[in-house]
């Protein structure tokens, strides 16, 4: 059945895999109809998919540096697109995005625009040139283009800071899902999640991560789209929800008028500790908030997410794995397409979830019903028991008002199938999808960090004479150490999922965006300029974060630039320092300039020879 090169057989292999996964889903549905409990099905879903990923990780084991760092540069365009999409879409995208839209409305959807538009920057400004350069890691480019260990080390510093803020959130998410699906304590589940993540990456590095990420993308996209289509058809909203929910959006706006959008006061909430961490709907679903400040809040968030996207090393390094420069560029477009499939569904899921709960004409509607009835609904009872939803009768009329119904953001994705009355097998599928999303991102991040430490710090700075076996040994040990450290931080539950995810983008854009872009597009950029830019950008961004961060000094943000947008301070500082210092120092030598000329041409060998 499978003849010839492995990469020639990929469509067949993943076709069989997808078919097998669908058969598995049907089997679970069959078990459910024969009376097997929902809990068992959830365990089977998560355990089965994780076992498959681990198996792929084992099959992809390698002892070669180029396979470990860049998957042997043989990942075809479309498959690299899928792997990048899985690398990109984190636990936050999968679990928290629809919930964020549900509660945050229009302004929150700035994340959708920012997290897709950034790929245009990646394709136009960076990916093809970094591929031609032929580096193993992102700091490898900085170190060679600008020369010197200090520039390399600064890039490693930014990479570690950005990726590490991101990875703890992902390990946290795997822990949350594993603890719910397997019914174990969160503090233990974090390490179960970590073990699954390491099984996918330790033996085969980038090669193993690539092929598991493709498998994870397939699971997560099925798990996201199936419920959206199913619910939409079930409540009669339209067979293709993306183009047919106009009436529902209008109906929600009308219901918001009827029920009234009330923002609960802090004092009222403080009197009811069960609402801690939960939210009620207080923002319009589709209306645009008025005023220039509101527009600026939206646009500034878009800037940070777009520029941050183009600076995140775990994404950029995915484009080092393609066979050619043309393929790298093309595969950015495919990545965006595969990401788009999920992102343009998230607002639809939020809409369906909201209409299901709000519309009194639907059997699932709960707003405006009697509170004692609502408290007896099965799914409400279940989620209330784990403190994910709460009801407070503020006005004491015994009727559930819109501002009296509280949910955690993640519940929108995790509970909507149950709310709409879909079989439990769908909830199991969604858990497996969330696990796939969080694992794939965590894998990419842990690998980005440990590769930078092993390749750039150990091999290039500390011990340039190390042989391949030793380098790969160090890489694997660092992978485990970074993972354990991340899991340890995650187990302490320091931050909520989204706060820290946005920070990763701001750190990356503060320190890396301009050194990378100008490294390709401005020959005059010098080592001193890049170093000043990286240090100055990172330092000023971080200082501003500490100044406005609600958990730090909590000062009033300047021009609405709050802790989610601190990259807007760091990146301009980085740019100005880079230009000023570069112009004050001697222009780069002829060899460096020739290297820049070389990376601008797709054909020919890579600059580094790797």
């Amino acid at each position, binding site marked *: 059945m499978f003849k010839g090169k492995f990469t020639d057989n990929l469509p067949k292999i993943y076709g069989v895999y997808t078919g097998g996964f669908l058969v598995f889903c049907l089997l679970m549905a069959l078990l459910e109809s024969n009376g097997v409990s929902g809990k068992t099905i959830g365990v089977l879903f998560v355990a089965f998919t994780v076992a498959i990923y681990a198996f792929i990780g084992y099959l992809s084991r390698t002892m070669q540096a180029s396979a470990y760092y860049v998957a042997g*540069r*043989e990942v*075809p365009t479309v498959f690299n697109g899928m792997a990048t999409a899985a690398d990109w879409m984190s636990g936050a995208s999968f679990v928290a995005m629809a919930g964020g839209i549900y509660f945050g409305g*229009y302004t929150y*959807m*700035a994340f*959708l*625009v*920012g997290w*897709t*538009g950034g*790929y*245009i*920057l990646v*394709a*136009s*400004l960076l990916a*093809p040139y970094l591929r031609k350069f032929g580096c193993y890691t992102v700091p490898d480019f900085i170190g060679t283009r600008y020369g010197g260990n200090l520039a390399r080390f600064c890039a490693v510093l930014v990479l570690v800071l950005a990726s590490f803020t991101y990875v703890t959130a992902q390990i946290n998410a795997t822990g949350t899902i594993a603890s719910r699906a397997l019914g174990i304590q969160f503090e233990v589940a974090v390490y179960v999640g970590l073990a699954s993540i390491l099984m996918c990456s330790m033996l085969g590095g980038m090669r193993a991560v690539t092929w598991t990420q493709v498998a994870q993308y397939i699971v997560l996209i099925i798990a996201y789209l199936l419920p959206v289509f199913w619910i939409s058809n079930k409540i009669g909203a339209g067979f293709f929800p*993306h*183009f*047919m*929910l*106009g*009436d529902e*959006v*209008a109906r929600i706006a009308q219901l918001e008028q009827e029920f009234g959008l009330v923002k609960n006061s802090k004092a009222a909430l403080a009197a009811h500790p069960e609402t801690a961490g939960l939210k009620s709907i207080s923002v319009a679903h*589709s*209306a*645009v908030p*008025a005023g220039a400040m509101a*527009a600026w809040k*939206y*646009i500034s968030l*878009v*800037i940070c997410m*777009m520029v941050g996207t183009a600076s995140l090393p775990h994404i950029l390094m995915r484009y080092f794995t393609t*066979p*050619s*420069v*043309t*393929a790298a*560029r*093309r595969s*950015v*477009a495919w990545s*965006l*397409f595969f990401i*788009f499939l999920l*992102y*343009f569904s998230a*607002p*639809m899921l939020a809409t369906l979830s909201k209409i299901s709960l709000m519309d009194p004409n639907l059997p699932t509607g709960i707003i405006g019903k009697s509170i004692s009835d609502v408290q007896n609904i099965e799914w409400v009872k279940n989620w209330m028991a784990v403190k994910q939803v709460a009801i407070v009768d503020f006005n004491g009329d015994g009727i559930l008002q819109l501002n009296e119904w509280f949910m955690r953001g993640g519940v929108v994705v995790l509970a909507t199938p149950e709310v709409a009355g879909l079989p439990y097998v769908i909830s199991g599928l969604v858990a497996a999808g969330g696990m796939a999303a969080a694992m794939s991102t965590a894998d990419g991040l842990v690998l980005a960090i440990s590769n930078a430490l092993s390749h750039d710090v150990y091999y290039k700075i500390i011990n340039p004479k190390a042989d391949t076996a030793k380098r790969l040994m160090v890489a694997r040990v660092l992978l485990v150490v970074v993972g354990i450290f991340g899991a340890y931080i995650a187990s302490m539950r320091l931050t909520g999922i989204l706060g820290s995810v946005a920070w990763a983008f701001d750190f990356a854009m503060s320190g890396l965006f301009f050194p990378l872009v100008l490294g390709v597009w401005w020959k005059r950029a010098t080592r001193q300029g890049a170093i000043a830019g990286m240090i100055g950008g990172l330092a000023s961004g971080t200082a501003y974060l500490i100044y406005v961060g609600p958990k730090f000094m909590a000062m009033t943000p300047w021009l609405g630039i709050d802790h989610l947008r601190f990259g807007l301070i760091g990146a301009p500082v980085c740019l100005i320092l880079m230009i000023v210092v570069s112009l004050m120092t001697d222009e780069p030598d002829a060899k460096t300039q*020739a290297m820049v*000329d070389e990376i*601008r*041409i*797709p*054909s*020919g060998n890579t600059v580094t020879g790797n």
Partner: protein
Amino acid sequence: MASKNHEAHWSKTSGLMKVTLALWFFFGYVIFMFGTDLNNFSFLGYPLAYYMTAQGSLAAFVIILFWSTGKQQKIDEEHGVSDAGRGE
């Protein structure tokens, strides 16, 4: 030093980059400066600004990127510097 051909290739590449980023800027920023006004119009039954942030701009980015990468490949081929097909 870069040859004449390479310089011509790079100036076309830079030109395409600027056009691509202009389109990107329009769909990513310009339309959202007028969100409140756009919502008075509708598309597929959705308020227009809501539609653009939920789907429209996202779809525009996908189309822009496929168009732009296709165009870049043509530029590379015209100047004989394409590496398409390597290792495939």
